[in-house]
Every structure is written in structure tokens, then in C-alpha cells.
């Protein structure tokens, strides 16, 4: 053991002390890292099914993937599938991870590099949770932003 290295108890205490500021930083910067995660998810989706997502909307914190998939809920009605996800459900690990790194006294460049790496994982989550969170919305003509879970003629 190196001199001055923390015991397990001190390490846990440090994590608990770092968690509140890390969660605060994560939450208040969520708009920015959610955008990064959304772009990564979009990139992944395009790799597997090019053209299936025509736009990525970012109302508030949520991410809305505007797909080209059409459904016909009723005769004469056409709806586009707009899966919507709350990226915070998948990125809370960033705050936890940051608290772990800071508690362990990791170097700043390592924290930044590893955060870059881990931010790719929530993107995978969005990619594979698509069907579970999808909903229909009519978008006749163009794909302008606005309107949620609405089916109109």
C-alpha cells in the first residue's frame, strides 16, 4: 500500500462525498451530454439501418428519433414512429463513474478519456431500446418539431 492511500472505508466515504456534486454536475449539464449521446445513438442506428431515422429532436432533456417508419392506426390515417427516450435513464452511470474516479484520486486526463468511452454505452442503450419506447405521431408533409404522442388526420 502506498503511503497516504485510502482504506476501503475512506474510499467509500470519498465516493459518498463526491456523489452529490457529481450528480449535480451531471444533471445540470444533461442537455449537453444528452445531445452527445443522441448523436452517438443516431450514428449507430445509421450504421445498421441507414435512412430509418430522418431527424433527431431534442426537446428539453428527452431525445426524439423521427423515423421514416409509417404506421396506419386507422383507415385514412398515417403516423410516423417517433421513439422518445429519456437519456438520463442511461447516463446516470456517468455521475457515479465520475464520483468513483474522483474518490480514487484518478488523474484528470484519465477521467476525461474514460468518460468519453463510457458515454458511448448509453448510445447503445438508445439503439436497442427503440421498440420499447416508441409511439406514433402523424407528420404529414415535413418533419417539423413539436407535438407529442398526437394522432391527427
Amino acid at each position, binding site marked *: 500500500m502506498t503511503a497516504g492511500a485510502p*482504506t476501503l472505508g475512506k474510499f467509500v466515504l470519498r465516493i459518498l462525498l463526491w456523489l452529490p456534486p457529481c450528480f449535480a454536475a451531471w444533471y445540470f449539464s444533461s442537455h449537453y451530454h444528452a445531445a452527445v449521446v443522441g448523436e452517438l445513438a443516431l450514428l449507430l442506428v445509421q450504421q445498421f439501418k441507414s435512412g430509418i431515422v430522418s431527424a433527431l429532436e431534442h426537446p428539453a432533456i428527452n431525445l426524439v428519433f423521427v423515423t421514416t417508419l409509417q404506421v396506419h392506426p386507422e383507415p385514412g390515417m398515417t403516423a410516423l414512429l417517433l421513439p422518445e427516450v429519456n437519456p438520463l435513464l442511461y447516463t446516470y452511470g456517468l455521475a457515479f463513474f465520475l464520483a468513483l474516479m474522483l*474518490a480514487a484520486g484518478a488523474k484528470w486526463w484519465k477521467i476525461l478519456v474514460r468518460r468519453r468511452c463510457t458515454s458511448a454505452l448509453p448510445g447503445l442503450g438508445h439503439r436497442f431500446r427503440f421498440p420499447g419506447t416508441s409511439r406514433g405521431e402523424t407528420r404529414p408533409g415535413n418533419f417539423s418539431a413539436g407535438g407529442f404522442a398526437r394522432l391527427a388526420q
Partner: protein
Amino acid sequence: MLRFFILFAAILATLFAAELTQPVQNAVVLPWTAALTRISAGLMTLFDAHVVAAGKILRSTANGFAVSIEAGCNGIEAAIVLIAAMLAFPAPWKYRVAGILAGLSAVQVLNVVRVISLFYLGQWNMKVFEWAHLYLWQALIMLDVLIVWLVWIRMLPPTSSSATPPAPPGEGARRATAI
């Protein structure tokens, strides 16, 4: 280290896949979730007579507030992560079994605390409930898993493996037999 990660990922994937199957749901997940509900309700009735449990639903007869304990809130996922970490790590089997049993108890005790705290947080403020439910408690449960695993590693006999274990961050490669 590489062997550990490969084994960990493989066991994790296997256990998560098994958890999703109907037989495991019927034999383990649903009965455990109902038991967790009853245990939580039993503890809460010690200080709150208005709590009732029905299946996986906890309800307050005082104000009608109810929560349903769903997959992800029953501590089984956290238990799977812990089991995978202990099975993947080189250790004698008796230590693995003891570690898994003790670890599962630690995870489930904290999970009961989570359920009870969320039940009352929800009656107080739904925004705080959502925040604690979706983000904070998830991290705390995983922290619990990490702590249990680190404590277990420290209790392993030094001769249990020729492989160098991943030491707790900031502690170099030293292993102690006591906490």
C-alpha cells in the same frame, strides 16, 4: 484481468438472459418480488399501520398512494452483477458461495431500504421520488454491489489465486485479510 472481464461479461450475459425467460420469471423473479413487497410492508407496519401489500403492490390506506415493485426495482439485476463478479474472480468455491450468500443479503437489505424510502418519498414529493427512483438509488445500489465485492476480495486468502486481483482504487495491489 482479461480473463476476469471476459468471464464476467459472459456470466453476466448468461444470467441476464436466464432472468428474462418465463420459467425463471415464474420460479424466481415474481415470487421474490412478491416476497420483497411483503417484507417491506411488514417492516413498515412496525411504524405505519396504513401500509398494505397486495402481490407486488405496496399501498397506503391513508392516502391511496401505491407503488408497484417492477423488474429493475427488485434487486435481482444488482444481485446478478454481484454473482457474476464473484464467479468470475479467481477464488475458492467456499469463499464464492459464502460471498454470494452474504452479498445477496447485503444487496437485498439495501433494496428494502430503497423500497421503503421511495414509498414515503412518493407520498411527499413526486419529483423527488422520480429523481431518487430513476437515478440516485440506482447508483447507490451499484455502489453497494461494488463495496460488497471489494470487501469480499479483501477477505480472500492470499494463496487463493496466482492471479493479481484488481485492487480497490488507490490501494495499489495490496490485499488484506481483514477490513
